[in-house]
């Protein structure tokens, strides 16, 4: 099957949210089903921290402290996906970046040459204007590769459990 399968590399974007874990399950299912390599990326949202600093909600020291925390969170989420994949006999590569989320994901898409980006259900937005700032939406607009947005947690969980 792999010989005729054009899908070789899947990139999964996670942010630690429940929808991104559902996306992780789906990406693992697809990587197993199609015999693909799976790479998973988490981005420390430095942009958001800078905005909160600029808005004077955070002070500089606090921003640095939260940045370290988010990096640790990222490592934990990535490790969680590694373990999730390992349970299904799949090895995954992990990438942790810092910066503007959609730009870093897009850069990873370009550099890794992935065939498909998988991400979780889009976040809620407060207004149409707000939708332009939602990270999932921004990734969708920015990346230059096929992208799959995973919805339907219960169905994905059933599929994952049956794998």
């Amino acid at each position, binding site marked *: 099957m792999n010989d005729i399968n054009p899908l070789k590399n899947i990139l999964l974007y996670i942010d*630690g*949210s429940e929808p991104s874990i559902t996306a992780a399950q789906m990406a693992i299912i697809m990587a197993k089903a199609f015999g693909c390599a799976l790479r998973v990326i988490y981005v420390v*949202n430095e942009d*958001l*921290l800078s*905005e*909160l600093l600029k*808005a*004077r*909600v955070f*002070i500089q*020291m*606090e921003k640095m402290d*939260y940045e370290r*925390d*988010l990096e640790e*969170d990222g490592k934990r989420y990535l490790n969680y996906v590694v373990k999730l994949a390992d349970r299904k006999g799949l090895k995954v590569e992990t990438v942790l970046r810092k910066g503007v989320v959609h730009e870093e994901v897009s850069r990873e898409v370009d550099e890794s040459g992935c065939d498909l980006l998988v991400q979780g259900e889009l976040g*809620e*937005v*407060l*207004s149409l204007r*707000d939708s332009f700032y939602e990270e999932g939406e921004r990734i969708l607009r920015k990346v230059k590769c096929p992208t799959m947005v995973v919805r339907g947690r219960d169905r994905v969980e059933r599929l994952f459990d049956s794998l």
Partner: protein
Amino acid sequence: MRLTDYITPDHVKIGLEGETKEEVIEELVELLAGNCEDCDADKVLEVVMNREREGSTGLEKGIAIPHAKCDAIDSLSIVIGISRDGIDFEAIDEKPSHLFFLMVAPMTESGPHVQAIAKIVKMIKIDSFRESLIKAKTPEQVVESIARVENGE
């Protein structure tokens, strides 16, 4: 993340009695402690006050977001206090603060904490939302206003 997963009418106090920054923070911490089991109110008060000493969390347009991380609580806690008269919270614009969001997160859960703060900062930029909270007559109305904005209404 949805703020209404963290904020119920029990997490809202309309008509804060405190008249100084310290008194308001104490009042908010008391409200927070009343809503979380086994949390050490003295410890929470200490970390929130320490954070305020580093720099005021009084923003523009009558909003303040005092916050801190604390090992005395197990999960992100948010309470809201509203003062009709306003309190000098050393705000950026030097105007009285009316709307207070106290947020305290455990040491190990910064992701949701940052997201919640960012969401509140985004929401309070909506004039009608801000006004609806300041003018709310009941805690239920405050939570309903938050839910409406979160639902994109």
